[in-house]
């Protein structure tokens, strides 16, 4: 069920007349776009630490946001009191960006002709709280039996259910229900004098049953132990320029930061991106084809419709190195005179929509990962990253590896610690010299931040080789 439709609307006596009146109030002859977004979100989180399932929490947040856009101006207000008169006042505030305006009556029609990419039921109520607690205990026991060097284990199981409603001055409204499950394991291993951490996680838009009761949580636990173990033997990293091979899957976060953000419509409309005015130009090595696809079933970054009610799509951003298009929301698409791409996203009703990524990945190539490693005489193989950041204007990006190795004469050797990659997005993409055939999406752990708003995203890529990139480390 959609809680907005089945609970908030009747509870607050909001019918189609009231909704039309609200959207109309925020509209008018000088307003290009207005929308009303209503959301009811429940989030829960359970944590096992020190062998005790000691933390449990549930959070309910509901409210509305109303926006009016006139050319490049936006007025926005939000609240959590669903009283009709209050929402009308908020609509008037949002519309106050324009000085003169003639009334416009908006007639709304439901739009539901989009593919549902996930179930609508809430994961939270799909199993009992006791089952969640028992599950965490089971994983905790498994890890402690598996490795005696374990010093600390923190396991978290969380999920959310988001019921949304969006109606806009284009005359349509729609509902969407979005489940999201996340499981995470962190272990700290101690051996002699060293301590190192390893973590692994996964999730997606599905119910708990998709991971609980399968082998996946135990595989992720093994993975966390493996990473910590690898890091226990790591040696300091030598600073300087070198060849770097990126592993498949999660290292796609580099693509997300180095290229993805620079291809968001707002930055390109304002020409503050390094990729501004580059459509049709060679921006990457011809081995690179980059896609943003919000339509993959059950993925963390997927949405049936974006937060403006536009169905998501599979958008080609870069094809064989040529820049094809940007990611757009309604406002930026209109201002740039292109079609919206289904990338209008917002953290919540209390935030404005803007162009954001969904699942961003690079297509596989024709090499194999073995061939790529074999081809490197002296370099680094980076398999996992803990985080990164980009300056979209200069294109400068930074990444920190959580698992990386030296490559010596075509062989992966010692693991290295404290490795940071730094480079310039477009420069680095031009230096991609080999791409393997092993494209993989990440396990469903990504959260992207932009202008203070966080949204879940997916990343992916095949194994690939970058010639000559700057690596930071403590050794000279």
């Amino acid at each position: 069920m959609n809680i907005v439709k089945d609970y908030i609307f009747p509870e607050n006596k909001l019918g189609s007349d009231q909704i039309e009146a609200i959207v109309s109030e925020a509209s008018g002859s000088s307003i290009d776009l207005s929308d009303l977004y209503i959301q009811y979100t429940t989030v829960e989180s359970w944590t096992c630490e020190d062998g005790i399932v000691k933390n449990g929490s549930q959070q309910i947040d509901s409210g509305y946001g109303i926006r009016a856009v006139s050319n490049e101006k936006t007025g926005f207000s939000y609240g959590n009191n669903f009283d009709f008169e209050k929402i009308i006042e908020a609509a008037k505030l949002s519309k106050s960006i324009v000085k003169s305006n003639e009334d416009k009556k908006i007639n709304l029609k439901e739009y539901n002709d989009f593919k549902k990419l996930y179930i609508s039921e809430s994961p939270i109520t799909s199993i009992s709280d006791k089952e969640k607690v028992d599950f965490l205990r089971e994983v905790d026991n498994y890890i402690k039996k598996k490795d005696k060097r374990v010093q600390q284990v923190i396991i978290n199981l969380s999920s959310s259910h988001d019921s949304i409603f969006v109606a806009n001055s284009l005359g349509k409204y729609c509902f969407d229900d979005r489940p999201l499950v996340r499981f995470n394991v962190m272990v700290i291993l101690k051996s002699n004098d060293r301590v190192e951490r390893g973590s692994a996680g996964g999730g997606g838009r599905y119910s708990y049953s998709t991971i609980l009761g399968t082998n996946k949580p135990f595989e992720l636990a093994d993975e966390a132990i493996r990473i910590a173990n690898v890091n226990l033997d790591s040696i300091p990293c030598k600073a300087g320029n070198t060849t770097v091979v990126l592993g498949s899957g999660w290292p796609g976060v580099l693509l997300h930061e180095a290229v993805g953000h620079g291809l968001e419509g707002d930055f390109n409309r304002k020409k503050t991106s390094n990729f501004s005015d580059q459509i049709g130009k060679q921006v990457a090595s011809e081995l690179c084809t980059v896609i943003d696809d919000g339509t993959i079933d059950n993925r963390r970054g997927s949405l049936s419709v974006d937060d403006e009610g536009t169905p998501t799509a599979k958008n080609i951003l870069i094809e064989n190195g040529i820049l094809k298009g940007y990611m757009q929301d309604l406002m930026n698409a209109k201002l740039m005179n292109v079609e919206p791409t289904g990338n209008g996203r917002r953290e919540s009703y209390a935030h404005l929509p803007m162009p954001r990524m969904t699942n961003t990945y690079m297509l596989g190539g024709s090499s194999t990962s073995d061939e790529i490693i074999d081809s490197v005489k002296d370099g680094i193989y980076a398999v996992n990253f803990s985080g990164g950041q980009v300056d979209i204007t200069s294109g400068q990006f930074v990444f920190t590896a959580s698992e990386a190795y030296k490559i010596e004469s075509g062989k992966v050797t010692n693991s290295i610690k404290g490795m940071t990659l730094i480079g310039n997005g477009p420069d680095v993409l031009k230096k991609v010299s080999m791409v393997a055939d092993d494209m993989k999406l990440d396990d469903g752990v990504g959260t992207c931040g932009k202008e203070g708003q966080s949204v879940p995203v997916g990343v992916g890529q095949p194994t690939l080789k970058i010639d000559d990139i700057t690596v930071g480390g403590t050794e000279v």
Partner: protein
Amino acid sequence: MSENFEDISLRLKNIIDCLDKNKEYEFHFNSASGTDVTSRFGDLENIQYHNDESLTVTCIDGKKKGIASTNNLSGESIDSTIKKSETIASFLEPDDYQGLPCENLINKLNIDCDINFPKQFTTDELINMTVECEKSALDYDNKIKNSEGSEYAYSQSNNLILNSHGAVGSYSSTSYTLSCVVIAEDNGLKERDYAYSTRRNFEKTDSAKIIGELSAEKAISRLGAKSISTQKCPVILTPELSVGLFSSFLSAINGNNIYKKNSFLIDRLGEKIFSNHINISEIPIVEEGLGTRPFDAEGVKTYSKQIISDGVLDTYLLDTYSAKQLNLKSTANSGYSNIQIRSSKPMSDNLIESIDSGVLITEMMGSGANLLTGDYSRGAFGYLIEKGKISHPVTNFTIASNMLDMFKNIDEIGCDFYGNSKINCGSVLIKDMTIGGN
């Protein structure tokens, strides 16, 4: 909001007084309202009106802790939130260290600590202010070719805590931020930089003109950045970046990271962490202080304390739970307030002069500070220093070390104190770090 903060406080107080005496309860209520205005190229771009409130209920039932929160303050919703916290607690497993604080509790509503300075502006005044700020950047130099605009952000927030052991406390505060982000362009290269000022009292924020000009000056100075070779050398961190380094230190001595053994500073109480000349203290009540608070997030009365004395670690930052885990007492540090970093050496306003060859770091990127091992490796932007003077901007390099070494290697602290953070410190000079360039 239909009901004012004082009325809600009293209503919640009555509710908590009537709950089951065999369980412990904590209510945390926050409300905030405000306005954000952004102007770009001389015209309003964005206006946002904020209005948030939320209630978090913690229930501890036989050493089991459940938390539930809502933003619907109707009687019915509060009841179901309390029930949910009880239900969650009932499914958890007992943890001997759970429990709400019962000592040194706050017992006063509407505490005035000189951090609440509400001021009303009309929308036109705000638009004019942001337009003026951006204009002073655009007019500064013709290399300023693009802008992300100037933003004014105002927030007035109210904070209430109640617990069933008698904690009752509330206070209100305001925050004003004026910022400007511009892009300098030259020879096809673009560089972006910003300047901002955050204060409790609007009258104390830097003027629109100063902020605009500073953002332009910073963006222009980045143009023409060169690469730098891999080397070990002294680095100076700007006050803003020093704040980041000291906040990593404060995370590393947070009791929750200590008992979880997730810190490179475990078992270090009483040991020398910094060089002799460094002193770090926490001062909870500072007039107009960005960190000022009369009680911590659990309702324990805050007090002034020394954290580092002559380089030695005096205390961890403990909340009730981590204190019990470590068999210590809460230091009223569920969070921290105003932190002061000082050197007993003379504090100069120009650390660059003393450097023969080194780098001034003005920006760091990426999350390369590892709390567990202390390993530090981040991307950076800065300026090469030669013979006591800035030579040219440098980019595309990393700086790396271990935080333990960095702390011991802080040779000097400047008196160019940073006013936009609750951590108050100046530039720091670290005598030896690894630069990873080409």
